[in-house]
């Protein structure tokens, strides 16, 4: 079994709250392997972005506490020095942010921003770096890269901005690309293009991608493996095929069921999971999902065990024997009470 590219164990993150620290991320364990795409899916507030930002040391040290361990290419990064982190950022691990309009500094041209990243890690001359930037813009499918490089972010369309961000992220050939909801701020047609682009680049550049999203459709298209997060925990993990064919956790069932069906009889109402995720400081002691779970039992008042199998796991009391029964029980629709 080759060493995973990124190996996270027992990651817990707390933020400073008015009445003491609030635990936002609870005991996260996951790996990212070479040349694979891992999708992290969950609702807003599940902590997806925070967990990945902590890998790069981008959380505010004054108001957050990070515990646990994470190693990248075998070396510890959670406790690494600022200089080590600075060298990793942009070169080994790159970040693509959610909203490219606010993620780029408005007063510098797109080319300047890419050149800045290149020059931070390579000793290239300005001209060489500029040419490389134009090259990259071309590789991400921008039609007139030389002109675009001289433009400011507000002059580009949403799709082009995101492509430019991707070009910037790839400029130093990172081994790991973290894409934080890269298509959320874009139109549906542009979404498809950007996903195509990511897939192609993963092939050509050989990097791994951690793709954060709340859209199961994106997961189906892109993922090799899937992590389902809820209320700061990983509630399910497995290969993309396995998850879609046979999910184990009721939350995942809810996510899958809520995808509007393309064929079959037209339902009266769309399916949704009733309620909303708990506030980080109001999480129930037992299973976090229990208040919204249609398959809960008395045992869910205790912290659930992790069901393990080959290459997948789920944080739930329901084991193999009861799974089928629980799954076939209809998930509630919006107008039915618990």
């Amino acid at each position: 079994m080759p060493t995973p590219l990124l190996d996270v164990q027992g990651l817990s993150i707390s933020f400073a709250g008015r009445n003491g620290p609030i635990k936002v991320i609870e005991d996260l364990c996951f790996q990212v392997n070479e040349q694979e795409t891992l999708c992290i899916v969950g609702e807003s507030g599940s902590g997806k972005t925070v967990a990945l930002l902590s890998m790069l040391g981008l959380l505010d040290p004054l108001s957050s506490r990070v515990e646990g361990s994470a190693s990248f290419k075998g070396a510890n990064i959670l406790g690494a020095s600022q200089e080590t982190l600075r060298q990793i950022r942009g070169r080994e691990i790159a970040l693509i942010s959610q909203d490219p309009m606010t993620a780029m500094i408005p007063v510098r041209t797109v080319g300047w921003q890419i050149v800045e990243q290149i020059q931070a890690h390579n000793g290239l001359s300005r001209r060489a770096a500029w040419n490389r930037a134009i090259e990259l813009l071309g590789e991400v499918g921008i039609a007139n890269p030389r002109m675009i490089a001289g433009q400011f972010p507000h002059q580009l369309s949403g799709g082009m901005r995101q492509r430019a961000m991707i070009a910037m992220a790839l400029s130093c050939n990172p081994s790991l690309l973290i894409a934080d909801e890269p298509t959320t701020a874009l139109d549906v047609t542009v979404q498809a293009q950007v996903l195509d682009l990511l897939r192609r680049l993963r092939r050509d550049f050989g990097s791994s991608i951690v793709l954060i999203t709340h859209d199961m459709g994106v997961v189906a298209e892109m993922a090799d493996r899937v992590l389902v997060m809820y209320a700061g925990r990983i509630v399910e993990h497995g290969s993309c095929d396995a998850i879609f064919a046979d999910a184990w956790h009721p939350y995942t069932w809810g996510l899958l069921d809520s995808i509007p069906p393309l064929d079959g009889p037209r339902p009266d109402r769309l399916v949704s999971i009733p309620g909303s995720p708990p506030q980080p400081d109001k999480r129930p002691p037992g299973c976090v999902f229990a208040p919204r779970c249609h398959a809960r039992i008395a045992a869910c008042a205790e912290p659930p065990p992790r069901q393990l199998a080959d290459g997948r796991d789920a944080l739930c009391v329901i084991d193999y024997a009861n799974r089928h029964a629980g799954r076939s029980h209809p998930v509630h629709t919006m107008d039915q009470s618990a």
Partner: protein
Amino acid sequence: MATEPAFGSAVPTLSDDSRARGPWTQALHRFSRDGSALAAALVLVVVVVASLLAPIYAGRIAGVDPFSSNLEGEITLAGENIPVLAPSTEGLGIGVIPIGPTWQLNTYFLGADEQGRDVLARLLYGGRATLFIGSASTAITLVLAAFVGICAGFFGGWIDRVLSRVLDILWAFPIYLLAISLSIVLLNSRIELGPLVIDSSSLIIPIIIIGVIYVPYVARPIRGQVLALRKSDFVTAAIGLGVPPHRILARDILPNVITTLIVFVPLMMALNIATETALSFLSLGVQSPGASWGTIIRDGQSLLYSRPWVSTAPGLVIIVTIVALNILGDGVRDAFDPRAKLRP
């Protein structure tokens, strides 16, 4: 399905923390936990109380009249009789030099000025004048600015154009020049508005002048705020529903504007006090024999090298007051609009 364990329903209930506090109570609560703002407020209270007690100090404790000259007086110090204005032994040896600080509260604590008047007593009285002018002019500025800003921002059209032009011209006039010009002109003439006669020594003149010149400074942000509010969804909806303008103003616009005004109060007071003391220093504010912190500094100019405390003391008091007002101003602003300063 097994019996329902006590989890709570799927629909989350209101967390018990949201004791639906209105924004004012919230602001007050935040303010009460701001140490430096409270300290600043305390300092200001001390200054105000001391100034208000000026008559008591002058009358009971020091036994002086701070407004009339005391050229022949004597005081008893450690058993000796010392004239308040003694013949000068410095420089060319001509003229008189007033007594220096005795550091005794019951007599000429900070010494005398060149008219033989007790500096500390005048300092306290000066506080009354300066603080009164500062507060009154702040009130005028805020009321006028709110009126102008709301009219311009809410009604728009030609009203906005005219008002903005007037504000532009007013603001383009270098502010101190405007204050000085108006002061000079108004101080030299008796203003008779029918039965109302305003004497040149009245404090009304500096109050109105200082109040008016800063109107553009506050009116512009208010106008901007009202413009933004007017374009907001809920106001547009209200207009579309036919809610009469005075209701929209009262219910939606005014509360927000009042919040902005409250934040402006300490800052404008600081600014107005600074302006008043500068004008008084130039003999264009409070007139003799009245006292303000600025006039005392001016009085001390001729005594600067021999009796520096006359000019120094009021300056120190001004600094402390303005610093306290600024810290208070920061605290008030933070109380209404806190940046989440999380501390682990």
